């Protein structure tokens, strides 16, 4: 008969378990990509590429970027950031489905590191978003976009985008654990993704908006990451002088850190509440 697992007591071996278990849970998602590539391809690749082509070519002709510059260059950092926004829905859906179908409970009833349920999800979603970002960047290169200010700044921009994704991850985990008994709420949250983008600067410059909308868009955390990425890639900024835009890189760090500081504890709290 198979040996019963011995529960480790030392901190080092417990950490070892946590890392091993995280990797097993992460690999489960990677196996999903292989077995059922359809949804991953559609949400990670086809959809953003379609949006780039639609906005870039179909609507792009009618778009004038305030302060000058090519609309497609203006759009690409916005699309990168939108891909991070779509990640909220991906995380939310996966977390709520596992909780609703009882997979989370099975994990919780097993002698594995409890944290791995969440850290495995986090690792898989970050990987998925990194791949999506890489594909979209490749697509951007094909339609003539490219970073103007060197590799280091370009990598910095990608890093800031992934930092935003990491913040969104905890929003997704929190909402998933909050709303899993209620699939309608999960769908409702997903439909809010696009409005988040339109209430920011990914598609249009804030200076073209009415003042009240511009104020909302300016304070949208997404806008800071988009501005910072535009700045680091050397893409048109859309002429929008303000304190937030002038300090876009700092704000693109501050906003996600703030979101993590709020939603990471909330997620943990929700996860612990599963045992109430």
């Amino acid at each position, binding site marked *: *008969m*198979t*040996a*019963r*697992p*011995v*529960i480790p007591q030392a901190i080092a071996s417990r950490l070892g*378990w946590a890392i*091993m*278990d995280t990797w*097993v*849970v992460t*690999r*489960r998602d990677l*196996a*999903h990509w292989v*077995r*059922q590539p359809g949804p991953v391809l559609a949400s990670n690749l086809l959809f953003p590429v379609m949006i780039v082509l639609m906005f870039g070519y179909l609507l792009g002709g009618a778009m004038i970027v305030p302060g000058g510059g090519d609309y497609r260059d203006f759009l690409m950092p916005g699309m990168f950031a939108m891909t991070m926004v779509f990640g909220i829905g991906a995380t939310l859906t996966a977390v709520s489905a596992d909780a609703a*179908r*009882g*997979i989370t*409970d*099975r*994990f*919780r*009833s*097993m*002698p*594995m590191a409890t944290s*791995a349920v969440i850290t495995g999800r986090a690792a898989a979603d970050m990987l998925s978003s990194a791949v999506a970002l890489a594909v979209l960047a490749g697509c951007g290169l094909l339609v003539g976009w490219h970073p103007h200010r060197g590799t280091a700044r370009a990598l910095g921009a990608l890093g800031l985008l992934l930092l935003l994704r990491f913040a969104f991850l905890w929003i997704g985990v929190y909402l998933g654990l909050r709303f899993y008994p209620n699939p309608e709420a999960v769908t409702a949250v997903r439909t809010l993704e696009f409005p988040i983008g339109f209430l920011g600067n990914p598609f249009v410059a804030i200076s073209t908006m009415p003042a009240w909308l511009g104020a909302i868009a300016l304070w949208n955390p997404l806008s800071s990451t988009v501005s910072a990425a535009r700045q680091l890639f050397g893409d048109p900024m859309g002429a929008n002088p303000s304190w937030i835009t002038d300090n876009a890189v700092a704000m693109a760090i501050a906003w996600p850190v703030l979101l993590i500081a709020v939603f990471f504890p909330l997620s943990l709290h929700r996860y612990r509440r*599963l*045992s*109430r």
Partner: protein
Amino acid sequence: MDTPAIVCEGLSKRYGKTRALDGFDLTVPEGAIYGLLGPNGAGKTTAVRALATLLRPDSGRAEVAGFSVIRQPAQVRARIGLAGQNAAVDEILSARQNLVMFGRLYHLTAAAARRRAEELLGQFGLAEAGGQAVGQYSGGMRRRLDLAASFIVAPRVLFLDEPTTGLDPHGRNEVWQTIRALASAGTTVLLTTQYLEEADQLADAITVIAAGRAVAVGSPDELKSLTGGDRIDVVLHDADDVPAVAALLQARLGVDVSLDHDGRKVSVPVTDRLAALTEIIRCLQDENIRVEDITVRRPTLDEAFLHLTSQQASPGDTAGNLSGQPAEVSAS
């Protein structure tokens, strides 16, 4: 005497004003198939979730395989399996991938996890379909995979929360056979079910739970005898006669009769079978009522169950043999 596989005393859990568990007691001996029976909302699932370390009880004591579910949850988790309502498998992955993944999470090496997955696929009759996505499985196959997943490290105690809910009779039979095989290999099984027939078929002993408390403990036969003796079923030719016959028999025999919902059957609880049978036949002949069939039988577990839980539902009325305490009818 061996330590019981499961003991809980005074287990309580409330949600707002609802007492999901209200001083629940349970003792399950090692090696038994033990049934936890109760109507919907009686606290069966809450009890299993608490025992499987998924839920923290507000008060009371609970030990599984000798370890406290509250203070030593990791030790408990290393010794239990959970299947049914509360545990599931990944639908996109194949059965084999599921079992290897869970094996890895039980910290088997990659090779050992693969070997164990193959063993389990064979043992649970899934070897042929092992590579298919679980989403394409029949209900019975999925439940068997669910059981296999809870059996990666043969657990001391296996919790099955309504393991056959939603299965067709064929799937249910498959799962029953599997459960019997697992129990005969020495695992203690705690089974919750709404199907009273299921408890009757599988369980060596049963605790009846209602409103978060154990209201009766005993073997299926002992619980049936709690409802007081045998029953005589009278099936009438004409459904229109049912109310008149019910009233007639009630008056003549001085007992509460029950009617079947499909309309033509009147059930009479009896103590002296022959005297009652003679009396019933005489009544029916006197009134010229056409009868299709008359049978004498033991009460079903359904009747025992309704009897027990309805007594519990009205707390002022528990004087009889229950008197607020679980009726200890087990002689063993």
